[in-house]
């Protein structure tokens, strides 16, 4: 049976923060998930952008804290990767639909081949980065 790597000991490249995504990354220091919400469109968006994908007005956006729970939208097994992930394959990559209606791309950890499926319920798994921020990953809700 295939063993999937949870990549816990990989020194991950640090995410390059943009001026408009800073609140997202700052919140990860406390393992809180903030995503952008358009008050006028009454809808969330991800990844963080410099403006609203709905109305084109950054002034309509605010940050809201969400649970990070959701379900797998699609997934793939990375069999080959570039450094520093090379030699750590295979590992899971998934698109996860948060309950608020946005898709987030991440690794899924602690998940077997038998468990993985489109529709699998997942919850956040915060992976520490070397600079004090945390990276949003997911794990099965019933882990």
């Amino acid at each position, binding site marked *: 049976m295939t063993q999937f790597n949870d990549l816990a000991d990989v020194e991950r490249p640090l995410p390059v923060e943009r001026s408009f995504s800073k609140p997202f990354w700052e919140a990860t220091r406390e393992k809180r998930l903030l995503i952008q919400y358009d008050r006028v469109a009454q809808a969330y968006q991800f990844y963080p952008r410099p403006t609203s994908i709905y109305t084109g007005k950054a002034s309509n956006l605010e940050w809201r804290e969400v649970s990070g729970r959701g379900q797998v939208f699609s997934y793939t097994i990375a069999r080959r990767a570039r450094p520093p992930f090379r030699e750590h394959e295979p590992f899971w990559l998934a698109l996860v639909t948060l309950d608020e*209606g946005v898709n987030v791309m991440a690794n899924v950890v602690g998940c077997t081949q038998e468990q993985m499926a489109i529709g699998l319920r997942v919850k956040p798994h915060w992976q520490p*980065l070397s600079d004090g921020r945390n990276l949003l990953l997911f794990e099965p809700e019933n882990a």
Partner: protein
Amino acid sequence: MALHDAAIVAYGETRIVPVSDRDVWQLGADILEQLLDRSGFEKGEIDGLILSSSMTGAGNPFWSQTTADYLALELDFCQTVDIGGSSPVGAVARAAAAIDAGLATTVLCPYADTAVAESNARGRAYNQEWTGPIGYLGPPAAFGFITRYYEEHYGLDYRALGKLAVAQREHAILNDLACEKLRKPITVDDYIASRMINDPVRLLDSVMPCDGASGLLITGRRAAEKRGLDKCVIPVGYGERTNLNAARPIVDPTETGHAAAGAKCFAQAGMAPSDIASFHPYDDFIIAIMMQLEMLGFCQHGQGSAFIRETGFRFDEDLPLNTGGGQISAGQAGLAGGGTNLIEAVRQLFGEGGARQVKDRRNALVTGIGGIPYGRNWNTSAAMILTPDA
């Protein structure tokens, strides 16, 4: 825009190689000479340059001007098209628009990239923030998501995909300019057994990064006729869509901009999918061909596997597919790769397909795919219908 008032008067292409020992500008010069020789034009008659972006040129923000300088072109119109794999077909539409607007009379469209030998690309995009830290490999992983989603929601016959891979490989074997390493027969069983890259995407689903160049010379249709050029290819329909459903947070990744781009292209040409004589779709992964068959209206969304099982795709069958092998079996010449299938379509309409010449050369449909966004399918979808000068 009077797209059909433009005429492609010559095509050029180099051999596709795993790594080029010739500089990207030398490949461009090779294309220029082929185009001048085949069209009878003088270099001094070229007053427009519209080239595709390239990984090699990516570090230079003055790429079109620098290329014009190296090729010693004096121009009234000069630009790089940077819509990824849609750039070569997009360049034809932009050349026609420039000619129609009086910005230029004769436009050189070179597509050259030596991405393997020398990549200067540093993508300033979402990747550095959102996908680099999770070990995402880019296109193969994106197509892993797409393929798994397709299979779950619509059902997918992998042997049907294998049939497309085999047809393209047979064509590459008939194409002396295809990457030599790829010119070996494969079977559907070989396709199924090829190793997984990003499950369920296999090695034989994927393009091999290569180096190479191609290009076109485009002028006004009337000017071409005045010169007595008996071989011309006319763009009669074009559509382009970037960032389909940009204002939706979640999209079905098996729906692409080719539905909109194709509808516009077919309407402009006054044709329907059933009129298409040969099909030259952009192919970075095999499933992209099937998705385009669906989105362009050859069959319904979700019915791609059945359509493929019922259709012959060899050059001498129902719907000849990428008769030069496509990028998957001829090699992907970096960001110039979109030129490979475009030039093959022009070659076929010129009647110069040799051992792989299609019988019906009334028209050809060429497409482009460009850019891989976050969690969707691709940024730009393009479609163009070409006909011989009637």
